[in-house]
């Protein structure tokens, strides 16, 4: 316990449950996340990986339980402050959640516009991120005209463009071939090395285990089955 207090816990979940109508997607999740950690959330399909990431990224509300962000109880934080908290998180959604009638550039720039950045900074930063994700040439394309892998890269670009301290990536390599998947993982690893906390949800374990140092949280039927340290 003492040891935990010295650690920099950015998020703590206590007995969190999430219900979708009658379905219990998460059941009694208690989890601490440390600043700068790398966490792989694994588990079979329908286990609740996406649901957990969405709750961590403040994209969904928990039905029960307590969530602390930097020691503050989320339930006590006014809804007007939520947008500012969300900006700390960069989310890659499993279904990408790109705006279909806005170009790749506009989709990525939206994060910075919402944060009130100035136009020249937005231009510079968005182009830089698109370059590193290899989507520079497609900046004027609309998401529906892109392949699944390309949309995924745009989603990653959007997640990192605001320099969030936490990245939550849901199957970030799901639609990619081995080479592109590795490129995206390397990109996220680089981001992690700069000090960011990175959480990846995936059932594709062998891609990650080989060269990642961090924690593997395995969930099944909405509960944490096992937590293991990865080399």
């Amino acid at each position: 316990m003492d040891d935990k207090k010295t650690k920099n816990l950015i998020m703590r979940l206590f007995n969190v449950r999430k219900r979708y109508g009658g379905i219990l997607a998460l059941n009694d999740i208690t989890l601490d996340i440390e600043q700068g950690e790398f966490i792989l959330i694994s588990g079979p399909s329908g286990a609740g990986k996406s649901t957990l990431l969405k709750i961590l990224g403040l994209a969904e509300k928990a039905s029960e339980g307590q969530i602390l962000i930097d020691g503050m109880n989320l339930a006590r934080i006014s809804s007007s402050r939520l947008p500012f908290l969300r900006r700390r998180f960069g989310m890659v959604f499993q279904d990408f959640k790109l705006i279909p009638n806005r170009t790749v550039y506009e989709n990525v720039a939206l994060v910075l516009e919402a944060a009130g950045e100035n136009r020249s900074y937005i231009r510079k930063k968005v182009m830089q991120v698109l370059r590193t994700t290899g989507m520079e040439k497609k900046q004027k394309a609309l998401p529906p005209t892109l392949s699944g892998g390309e949309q995924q890269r745009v989603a990653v670009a959007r997640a990192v463009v605001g320099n969030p301290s936490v990245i939550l990536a849901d199957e970030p390599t799901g639609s990619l071939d081995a080479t592109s998947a590795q490129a995206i993982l390397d990109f996220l690893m680089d981001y992690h090395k700069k000090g960011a906390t990175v959480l990846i949800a995936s059932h594709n374990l062998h891609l990650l285990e080989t060269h990642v140092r961090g924690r593997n949280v395995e969930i099944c039927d909405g509960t944490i089955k096992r937590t293991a340290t990865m080399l």
Partner: protein
Amino acid sequence: MNHFLKKALADICSNRVLNLITIITISLSILVVSVFLLFFENASRVIESWNQGGRAMIYFKKEFHPEMLPELKTKINALGGIDRITYISKTQALEDLKKKLSTGTAFLKTLKENPLPDALEIRMTSYHNFEDVKGLAQAIQAIDIVEAVEYGQGWLEQFLKIFNLFKMAGYSLCSLFFLIALFITANTVRMAFYSRKLEVEIMRLVGATETFIKAPFYLEGLVQGFLGGILGLTALSISYLTFSSGMTQHLAADVFVDIRFLSVKIIVLIVFGSTFLGWFGCYLSLKQILK
């Protein structure tokens, strides 16, 4: 800001038909309202010029003596609605008449006695409501020494009756159109919102504040209201120009008053009002959707 305006215009263009219908509805409402305003502005001027700004003459009986004046003045003032009272003695009235009839004064000199009565000229504060004017006149008439009260009874009564009828019709029609325009605008915003539901949801997820999310809708409402106002006024001025070029000469000759277009103040007010309408429609709609 310029950037956001461009975006709002792009959004309006992307939903062309719906927004066009909205803008046309707003402009129609503005047209109706401004037609009535045009009518009222001119009619008010006509009435004022005919009625000389709510003037009435009180003529006294022969028994009148200037010493009664202070008491009479207080009595009349007590009736309310009186702006000013001026005493015109019969001597003065005769002098005025002599001045007016520059020729033929010789005939007046033959008069042994001044045949004109002593009189008070009063100016009323409000004279658009004929019932008030009539009531006041009757109250004055009831004073013993008063022989007659003259205030342009016949035609003025008729004219004001029609005028007030128009006013009522105008008010109700204007409010009706205002409500229709408001409803249509609110509905357009609602439809725009639902058609961009995904976009709004994503904006929230990437950390956009409610203000940031709402701003484009408000801007769109404002632009729609503004364009509707401008379009309505353009339609009005075009019809005004076509009508007036043929009509004013005839009408002006009869009425002695030229028909004027809306004053700049009213035009600015109309544009302001229709822009507000766009904003208000948006406000109502978003308030309902976002609770």
